[in-house]
C-alpha cells in the first residue's frame, strides 16, 4: 500500500503556456495540504489540473498507485471529489438533489439511486448538518449554506482525495470556521487526503499538516507549518514591506506581537460614560439641551460627543468623509469642538413625501421607504446603531444621547430604537425634558412617567423644565408637585433662551415670521424645502427680515427673492407654477429685484430640467428661464465640502467678487450653461447673469464678507442704511451663541448630580 493518496511527479501546469514546471508533491491519507501564495501564483491552476479541468502539460498524477492517464473517468471520480469557488445557479434543484449528484459514478445507466446510495447521501447530509435545508432550492440558500451543501456533495462521492479551491472565500467568519472544522474532522475521521488552496494565512497556519508555498512560477517551499511560516519568507512571498505582520497572530511562527501604536484617545478609555436626554414631545428643546451639555462637559475638560440613533430631518450636514448626518448632531459636535462624524447619527430619515422617506444609514442613502416599510425594517438596523455607538464610545469620554419625539408613543413602542429601546441597549440614565412654554408641563412630565414601564421609569433620574419665562423662584411649588407626584428629582428650570443656532427641521418657528423690516428677503417656501439653515446668517442683522413665502401675493415688494434647496426639484418646480409664483418671480426679476437660487433653486432658475434616469419621477420640466443653464438629473448623489470663491458677480452684487466661499454641495444633478454666462462660484458650481444668481453651494452666505456685501448692496439699491460693521462670520456667530447656551445651562441645571448620572464622581 502506498503511503500517499495523491502524488504528482514532474507535473507541468498552465493554461496556454507552462506556468509551473516539475511539481512533485505527495498528499497522505488523513492529512491536509494547503496551497498558499499571492493571487495569480498558480494555486487554482494546479488544482484545476489535478481535477482534470486543465490538461496535464507534462508529468504524471497518481491516485493511490495508478497514473490518472490509465484510469477511466468513473474510476477517477470514485477516488477524488472537489469543491470549487464557482458560483453555481442550477435551476430548480433542491439541495438534496445537488448532494445526490455525488453518487453519479456509482449509479447505473439512468442514474437512479439505490437504497444504499440514499443511505450514503443521508450520511453526507448528517455530517454536514444540512438536513434542515435539504428540501430547499439550492438557489435560495446563503453562500455559507451553499458551501456546506457542496461539501456534502463531495463527501457523497466517497472520495479518497478531496480537492478544495478557496472553500472559505465570500464567507463570514461563522461559516468559515464551520466549513474548516468540518474539513478538518473529515480528514481525521474518514482518512481522506485533503488538498486546498487558501488565502487566509492565519487559518492555513492552524489547519495544515503540509503547507505548499507557490510563487514566482515555482514551488518555493513545501513542508510543515514551522518550516514554511518564517516571517522573512512570508514577507518575500507576498511582497509585504512595512505592514505589521504580527496582526496575523503569534505562535508558532513569530514569538511575540509587536506593539501597534494606537491613537492616544482610543487607548484612554474602553467605553465612554453616557447620559440620554428624552423629551415629552418633539420641539421641547432636546437638541439645544444636548448641545449645551456637550459644551458644558467640554468646558470642564472632558471629551464629549453627541449621539442620536435616528434623526428625522430635512436638513443634513455633510461630514469630511462626504457622508450625511443630521444637522443637529453636526451642530452639537461643533459645540464639543469635534469634527462631525457619521457615527454620531447612524440613521437619518429625510422625508421625500407625505408617507415616504429617504433612509440614510451610516451616511449613505440606503432606500426610499414608506413609514410602514421602515417600521418593519428598522429592527435590522440595530447592529448599525450599536456599531456606531461603540465606535464613538472609543473616541470620547462622555456621550450625550438625544432621544426623539416622546418615549411614550404607546402604539409605536415595540422595537423602539431611539428612546427607551436605545437606553436599554446602551444601559444609560435618562433626563426627561418638558416644555413649559407650550403649556401643560405637569401633564407632559407626569403623564410620560406614568405611561412608562417600571423598568423604563427607573432609568429617568431627573426632570428638566425647559423654556421657562420669568423668575424661576416662582415655580417652587411646581417643583414640589412634580417631585412628589413623579417621585423623580427636578434637575433644573431652564429659562427661555433667544438663541440662534441651526434649526432642526420644519418645526422651526422661522416659517411663521411675517414682519417686514428695512431689508426684506423673501424665501420661497417650497413644499420640500431642505437645508434652509443657509439663511440663518441674516439673523445677525437687526434690519433684515427673512420671510418664507408660499403665495404670490405674500411676496409684496421684497429686496431679494431666494429659491432655496429642495428634495424634489421637479415636483417643487411644478408647485411653483401651480401657485403662479413663477410669473411673480419673473416679474420682480424684470424689475431688477435680485433672484438668488441655491442648489435645487439654482436648478429651477435654468431653462430646462431633464430627468432621464427617473430619479425624480422622470420627464423634463421647463425652468424659470432666468439663467441660461440646463440641468440633467443623475443617479449619483454628489456630497462634498466646498472651499472656493466667487469668481465673478454681475449686477448689484458686484461687490462680492473674489470673496472666499465655504460650504458644501449635496445634489443629484449636473447643471451646465448653454449660452454665454458668467461663472459665479468657482469650479462651475454656480452661474449668474444680471441680477440673477445661482449656486450649488449651501452655506454660501456664511462668510461675513459675502453676507455684508449682499446686505449692503441691497441697502444701497433701496437707498436705506443698514449697519453691517458688527457682522461676523456665521461660524464665529454660532460659537458665541453656543457659549451663551452653555452658560445658561450651567447656571440653571444641577451639574453635579448630572455628572453623577453620567457616572463621573
Amino acid at each position, binding site marked *: 500500500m502506498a503511503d500517499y493518496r495523491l502524488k504528482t511527479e514532474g507535473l507541468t501546469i498552465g493554461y496556454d503556456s507552462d506556468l509551473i514546471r516539475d511539481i512533485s508533491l505527495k498528499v497522505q491519507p488523513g492529512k491536509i495540504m494547503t496551497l498558499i501564495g499571492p493571487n495569480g501564483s498558480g494555486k487554482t491552476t494546479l488544482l484545476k489540473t489535478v481535477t482534470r479541468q486543465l490538461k496535464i502539460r507534462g508529468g504524471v498524477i497518481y491516485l493511490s498507485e495508478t497514473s490518472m492517464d490509465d484510469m477511466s473517468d468513473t474510476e477517477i471520480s470514485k477516488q477524488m471529489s472537489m469543491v470549487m469557488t464557482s458560483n453555481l445557479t442550477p435551476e430548480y434543484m433542491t439541495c438534496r438533489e445537488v448532494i445526490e449528484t455525488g453518487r453519479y459514478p456509482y449509479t447505473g445507466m*439512468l442514474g437512479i439511486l439505490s437504497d444504499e446510495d440514499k443511505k450514503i447521501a443521508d450520511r453526507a447530509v448528517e455530517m454536514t448538518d444540512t438536513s434542515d435545508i435539504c428540501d430547499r432550492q439550492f438557489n435560495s440558500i446563503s453562500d455559507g449554506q451553499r458551501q456546506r451543501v457542496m461539501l456534502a456533495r463531495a463527501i457523497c462521492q466517497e472520495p479518497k482525495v478531496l480537492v478544495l479551491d478557496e472553500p472559505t472565500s465570500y464567507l463570514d467568519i461563522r461559516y468559515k470556521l464551520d466549513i474548516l472544522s468540518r474539513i478538518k474532522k473529515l480528514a481525521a475521521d474518514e482518512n481522506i487526503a485533503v488538498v486546498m488552496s487558501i488565502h487566509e494565512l492565519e487559518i492555513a497556519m492552524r489547519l495544515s499538516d503540509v503547507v505548499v508555498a507557490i510563487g514566482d512560477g515555482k514551488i518555493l517551499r513545501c513542508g510543515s507549518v514551522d518550516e514554511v511560516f518564517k516571517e522573512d519568507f512570508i514577507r518575500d512571498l507576498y511582497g509585504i514591506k512595512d505592514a505589521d505582520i504580527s496582526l496575523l497572530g503569534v505562535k508558532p511562527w513569530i514569538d511575540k506581537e509587536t506593539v501597534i501604536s494606537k491613537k492616544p484617545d482610543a487607548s484612554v478609555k474602553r467605553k465612554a460614560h453616557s447620559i440620554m436626554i428624552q423629551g415629552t414631545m418633539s420641539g421641547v428643546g432636546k437638541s439645544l439641551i444636548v448641545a449645551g451639555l456637550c459644551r458644558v462637559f467640554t468646558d470642564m475638560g472632558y471629551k464629549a460627543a453627541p449621539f442620536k440613533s435616528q434623526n428625522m430631518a430635512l436638513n443634513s450636514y455633510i461630514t469630511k468623509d462626504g457622508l450625511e448626518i443630521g444637522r443637529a448632531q453636526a451642530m452639537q459636535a461643533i459645540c464639543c469642538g469635534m469634527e462631525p462624524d457619521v457615527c454620531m447619527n447612524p440613521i437619518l430619515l429625510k422625508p421625500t413625501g407625505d408617507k415616504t422617506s429617504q433612509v440614510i444609514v451610516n451616511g449613505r442613502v440606503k432606500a426610499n421607504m414608506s413609514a410602514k416599510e421602515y417600521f418593519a425594517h428598522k429592527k435590522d438596523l440595530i447592529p448599525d446603531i450599536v456599531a456606531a455607538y461603540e465606535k464613538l464610545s472609543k473616541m470620547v469620554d462622555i456621550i450625550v444621547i438625544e432621544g426623539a419625539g416622546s418615549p411614550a408613543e404607546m402604539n409605536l413602542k415595540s422595537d423602539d430604537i431611539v428612546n427607551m429601546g436605545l437606553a436599554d441597549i446602551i444601559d444609560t440614565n435618562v433626563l426627561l425634558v418638558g416644555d413649559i412654554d407650550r403649556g401643560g408641563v405637569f401633564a407632559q412630565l407626569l403623564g410620560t412617567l406614568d405611561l412608562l414601564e417600571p423598568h423604563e421609569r427607573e432609568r429617568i433620574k431627573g426632570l428638566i423644565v425647559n423654556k421657562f419665562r420669568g423668575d424661576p423662584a416662582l415655580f417652587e411649588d411646581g417643583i414640589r408637585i412634580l417631585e412628589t407626584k413623579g417621585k423623580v428629582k427636578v434637575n433644573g428650570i431652564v429659562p427661555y433662551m433667544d438663541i440662534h443656532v441651526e434649526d432642526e427641521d420644519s418645526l422651526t418657528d422661522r416659517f411663521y415670521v411675517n414682519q417686514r423690516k428695512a431689508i426684506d428677503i423673501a424665501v420661497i417656501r417650497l413644499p420640500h424645502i431642505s437645508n434652509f439653515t443657509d439663511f440663518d446668517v441674516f439673523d445677525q442683522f437687526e434690519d433684515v427680515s427673512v420671510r418664507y413665502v408660499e403665495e404670490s401675493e405674500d411676496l409684496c415688494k421684497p429686496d431679494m427673492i431666494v429659491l432655496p434647496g429642495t428634495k424634489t426639484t421637479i415636483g417643487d418646480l411644478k408647485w411653483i407654477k401651480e401657485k403662479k409664483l413663477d410669473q411673480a418671480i419673473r416679474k420682480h426679476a424684470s424689475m431688477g429685484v435680485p433672484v438668488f437660487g441655491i442648489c435645487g433653486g439654482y436648478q429651477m432658475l435654468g431653462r430646462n430640467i431633464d430627468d432621464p434616469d427617473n430619479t425624480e419621477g422622470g420627464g423634463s420640466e421647463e425652468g424659470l428661464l432666468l439663467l441660461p443653464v440646463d440641468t440633467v438629473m443623475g443617479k449619483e448623489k454628489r456630497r462634498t465640502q466646498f472651499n472656493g470663491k466667487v469668481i465673478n458677480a454681475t449686477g448689484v452684487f458686484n461687490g462680492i467678487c473674489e470673496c472666499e466661499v465655504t460650504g458644501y454641495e449635496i445634489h443629484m444633478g449636473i447643471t451646465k450653461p448653454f449660452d454665454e454666462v458668467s461663472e459665479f462660484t468657482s469650479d462651475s458650481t454656480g452661474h449668474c447673469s444680471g441680477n440673477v444668481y445661482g449656486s450649488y453651494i449651501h452655506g454660501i452666505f456664511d462668510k461675513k464678507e459675502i453676507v455684508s456685501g449682499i446686505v449692503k448692496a441691497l441697502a444701497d439699491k433701496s437707498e436705506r442704511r443698514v449697519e453691517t460693521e458688527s457682522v461676523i462670520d456665521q461660524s464665529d456667530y454660532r460659537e458665541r451663541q453656543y457659549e451663551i447656551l452653555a452658560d445658561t445651562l450651567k447656571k440653571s441645571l444641577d451639574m453635579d448630580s448630572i455628572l453623577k448620572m453620567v457616572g463621573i464622581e
Partner: protein
Amino acid sequence: MKRSRCISVFTIISVLLMIMVALNVMMGSVSVSFDDVINVFAGRSVDEMVRTIILNIRLPRIVAALLLGGSLALSGYLLQTFFANPIVGPFVLGISSGAKLTVAITLIILLSKGFNIGSVGMVVSAFFGAMLAMGFVLIISVKVKNMSILVVCGIMTGYICSAITDLLVTFADDSNIVNLHNWSLGSLSGMNWNDIRIITVITIICFVLTFLLSKPISAYRLGEAYARNMGVNITALRVMLILMSSLMAACVTAFAGPISFVGIAVPHLMKSMLKTSSPIVMIPASFLGGAVLTLFCDGIARTVFAPTEVSISSVTAVLLVPVVIVIMIKRREEAGSR
C-alpha cells in the same frame, strides 16, 4: 423533486393530450361526430369520405404534430442544457432557418431537374443545414460567452437564412413556389403515412438516445467542472447534445417547416410546473408537453379561419412569445434579487 407533483403533472398532460387528439380528429373544415369517429376506429361502416378524412388526412397530421412537437421541445431542452442559457431554442438560434435554407435549395435545384428527393432526402438536407447553422452559432459561443449576444447572433443567422430562402423562392419556377412557400411558413398539412413512418423512426431513436443521456445531463446541471469531476465524458456529452438537438430540429423542419418558440417555451413551462430540472422527468415531460402544445396550436391553425389555414408559426408565436417574455423577466428579477 416531488413524486406526487410529477405524477399529477404527467396525468394532467396525458389527459390534455387525449382531449387534444379527440378534438383534432373531430374538428376541421368538415365536422365529424364522435360516433362516426368511434365507428371508423371500430371498423364499422361509415361514409367513405369521413373515413378518408379521418384516416388519411387528420390522423397522420395528428401523429405528425405529436411527434414533431415533442421533438421540437426536446431539441429546445437539449440546447438550453448545452448553452446553459434559458432563452435558446432551435428557432431562436437559427437552426430551423438553416435547415429551411438547405431544404429550399435542394428542392429548387432538384425539382427543376425533375428529381423528387423524397422524405429521407429532405431530412438529410435539413440536417445538413441545421448542423451548418449550429456550427456557426458554436463558433460564436466559443468566442463570446455572453448569453444575449449568442441569442442575437442566432436570430441574425436565422434572418440571413430566411432572406436567402426568400430570394430563392422569388426566382424559382412558378410550379415550385406554391409548395415551397407554404412549407417555408411552417405547416403540418399534407402529411401522409409514408412521412409518418420516417418521422416515427427518427423521433423514437432520438428520444431513446436522449433519455439515455439523462444521467450525464443531470450532472451537467452543476456545470462543466463538477460534471467532469463526477466522471462525465464532457466531449462525448457535448457532441451527443448537438447531434440530437440538430437532428430533431432538422426532422421537424424537413416535414413541417420552421415552427417557432415551442422549443424555448415548453421546457420552461414544464420546469415550472414540475418544480424540478431533473432530466429523467424533464425529457419525457418536455416531449409530451411539446406534443400537446403543438397539437393545440395546429388545431387552432386549422380551425380559426377554416377553411383557410393559418401558418402554425403564427399561432405558436402569438401564444408563446408572452411566455418567453415572462421567462426572461423572471430570470432578470431573480438575477437582480441575488
